[in-house]
């Protein structure tokens, strides 16, 4: 089970629950499982989200593998030279 | 009223053009003579990107009227390299990475050349004050000042 942590405002869409243990093996599965649990997260996960897997930040990386004891953080996407909204 | 008919010399070549009174030398160089090396950054004499030599004086071409230059000598960045050889300052700027985006570079080169013709051995402070009318937002000026100082040293006749 990977440990999944929601950073920032995402927690507000899950009734305050910010930590999950999920059996996801890819980012795609992770999104599906989270949406299953909290439909409100749905379209927020499609856009503007970065995923940190064991400290490494990925943006738009649906197929990135997630290990069984991986620590995963969902963050607002960082756009750097462009303005994040 | 009718446009002004002006004859002048640009980089040693005779030129002839028509311009309205309100057109600046920069407008004429860029839009009429298609010499776009002189850049327009502010049109108020504050950035130096349009620097040219007018009868041997460094000026902002955005602060000179086209109709003022009849019979006068104008030198622009396009005239700086002679034949196959870049001017030592142009070479110096390349080797020192003294440009990032490059928009201010023509103005800095024209102004730096004017400095070295007047003051072959400038101090760092002289270089910085002489170039204070040329804005650069990329480099922090460090590599530009080094390029000018080192090129000046290289250009001086060795004892």
């Amino acid at each position, binding site marked *: 089970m990977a440990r999944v942590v929601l950073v920032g405002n995402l927690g507000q869409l899950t009734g305050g629950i910010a930590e999950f243990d999920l059996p996801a093996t890819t980012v795609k599965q992770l999104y599906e499982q989270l949406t299953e649990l909290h439909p409100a997260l749905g379209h927020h996960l499609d856009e503007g989200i970065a995923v940190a897997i064991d400290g490494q930040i990925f943006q738009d990386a649906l197929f990135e593998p997630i290990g069984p004891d991986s620590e995963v953080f969902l963050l607002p996407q960082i756009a750097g030279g462009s303005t994040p909204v | 009223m009718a446009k002004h008919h002006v004859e002048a010399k640009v980089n040693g070549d005779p030129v002839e053009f028509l311009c309205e009174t309100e057109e600046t030398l920069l407008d004429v160089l*860029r839009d009429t003579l298609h010499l776009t090396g002189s850049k327009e950054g502010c049109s108020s004499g504050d950035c130096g990107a349009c620097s040219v030599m007018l009868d041997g004086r460094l000026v902002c071409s955005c602060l000179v009227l086209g109709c003022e230059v009849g019979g006068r000598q104008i030198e622009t960045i396009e005239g700086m390299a002679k034949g196959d050889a870049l001017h030592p300052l142009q070479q110096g700027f390349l080797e020192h990475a003294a440009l990032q985006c490059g928009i201010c570079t023509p103005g800095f080169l024209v102004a730096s050349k004017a400095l070295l013709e007047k003051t072959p051995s400038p101090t*760092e402070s002289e270089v910085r004050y002489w170039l204070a009318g040329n804005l650069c937002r990329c480099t922090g000026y460090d590599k530009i000042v080094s390029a000018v100082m080192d090129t000046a040293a290289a250009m001086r006749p060795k004892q």
Partner: protein
Amino acid sequence: MAETTNGHSQSYVGTRTVRPDGHDKVTGRARFGSDFNLAGQLIGRVLRSPHPHARIVSIDTSRAEALPGVKAVITRDDFGDQPSEFIPAGEMMMNYKDVVRNVMAREKALYEGHAVAAVAATSVAIARRALKLIDVTYEVLPHVIDVVEAMRSDAPLLHDDLFTVGVDPKPEKPSNIAKRIEIKQGDVEAGFEKADVVIEREFKTAPVHQGYIEPHAALATFSEDGSTELWTTTQGHYIVRAHCARLLGLDVGKVRVTATEIGGGFGGKTVVYLEPLAIALSRKAKRPVKMVMSREEVFKASGPTSGAVVRVKMGATKDGKFVAGFAELKYQAGAFQGSPVQPGVMCAYAPYDIEHVHVIGYDVVSNRPKVAAYRAPGAPISEYAVESVVDEIAKTLDIDPVDLRMQNAAREGTKAAYGPKFGPIGLEETLNAIKKTEHWNAPLRKWQGRGVASGFWFNIGGETCVSLTVNEDGTVSLMAGTPDIGGLRASLAAVAADELGVPYDKVRPIIGDTASLGFNFLTGGSRSAFSGSMAIVEAAKQIKADLCARACKLWEAKPDQVEFSDGAVRPLGALGEKVKPMSVVDFAKVAGKTGGPIGGVGRINAQGAGPSFGTHLVDLEVDPETGRTTILRYTVAQDAGRALHPAYVEGQFQGGAVQGIGWALNEEYIYGEDGKLQNAGFLDYRMPVASDVPMIDAILVEVANPKHPYGVRGVGETPIVPPLGAIANAMANATGIRFTELPMSPPKVLKALKDKGLNRA
């Protein structure tokens, strides 16, 4: 550089090569935004609102249209409205309902300089006259400029449909607060309980402009069949294409955008202003339309970055361990939501290992131009506030400020304040590098002060597409799709030369237009050298594999009998006695006979961008009788991972530091009671000039980024993060006064000195 016919083993990465685009830029040949022209082109000009806030009752363009030489006039009626939905444009999340209103005001003009109409005419003079003939009836509304005033419930409302996101329950009344965001770690109150010293301060920063010397410029031509060509000065021509296609209802595939040479951007050329207007005018006039902003328009109508109010509260134990950090950030977004408060929140405490962190941020609209990105958007503001308080903690506990930072520095494995653990990072190395400088121990005189501050930026990767083509003579054409804003082509050419083992000067890099390569995200986020070099390695890999395959066919060998090394396919083992290695040049000569053109295309979404930390050290002197500050000495140490081109990396450090000096000392947007900008020009918007600054010593720290084939980290943005704090700390050291408001301009400094009776030499 010696060229060998049979492979070439010289390495160019890490050397100070002359940039391939250099000659054009020192001779005036390079073509920037306003240097492009088309036969029959018209000149476009924009009519802008004189009011900071006004309802647009009516716009009558008939008199302007009647003026001989006027070929098109456009207003809000020429742009279809857009639904309010946030959609990804490249990586940037945008609400096109706002974008369409920012490029051309609809119901209301929301800031002085807001575009209200535009004309295309046969000459500048006619276009200017035409603007005076457009009759706009405004109903002037009360305006609000200051961020704190804008947050008040009785403040003039910019958008009656703006309800604060991120508060529970959803508010019933609209306000100017677009968003409240928050990050939490541990229990900050419990943390403060453990603290022996707690320092709380409120800071204020002014909006500052990116200050690129080249004004925005665009040249567009639209054909009856909808195909459009656009030349524009931008950090991302694919993003421009996306915006223009969306705003004008065009097929992306029919819009071809060429990025001209770009005269500085720093984040400010990541959005559209003139581009959609030029296309709309060309569509109406059926002729090419060229538009160039004046400097005044650049200041009034293009994005500065946020001004802000930031409250910071930090707690530490008496032996210097940071135990708790709280911060509240109020960032101006300008007329439409979307300030960089999110990264501001995430960066505030990023350099430090702190157990308990709580940061709240507000995104606030007011009657100012919509902010655009500016180098590490949001980070300099919040990190300035934190670094100022860190300095006060050091003073209070009598601990060396570098040692204090070292003691609390984030390192590999540290849980970042924004959540995840850091991989290998170089903050400690930059602190050590600073401590080792002669500068750190140099003596100071009365009224002189020394300050230090560290800074962090995430850096990004993102979608990137490049191509490498081996030409018939063995030379290599390199095409990238991210505008080269400061030496990118030099870095990419060096990587391509090393990968293929060809001489650097045989690689010709160009920036392709949107029709030439797959999607590229923009030049920003310190990504272009990081991602571009990654994509080139990928493209080169394809070429090497192809050449090995061709060699196997020519030599009738098995794949395991050949390898590509030092610019040639080499036979292994016994095969070596039969055949000679074949270089890239050799293959180029027989390309046709062996399968056709040789080339590779790298198409990636670059991941693994490593954060870059930096530490800045500054000496300054204050004139106690006038409040004037002189920067005496400046040293930057930053982790570059691996510097592909050391000179251009140093250039990023030096340029960022000097932009920071301007931000700290003199740059600010000054508004009058009337809500109008009073210093929309380089005369009174005071960016540093050459005589204002010393040489900037640059120390390259290289802690390799394991996720990049060359170990590269982005370097462009971090350098503007530490200066504000470093200079504020040096001011405190020189005067004994903690300044909490930027810019620290002479009137403010003299006032503070006078209040303490210190204004005598």
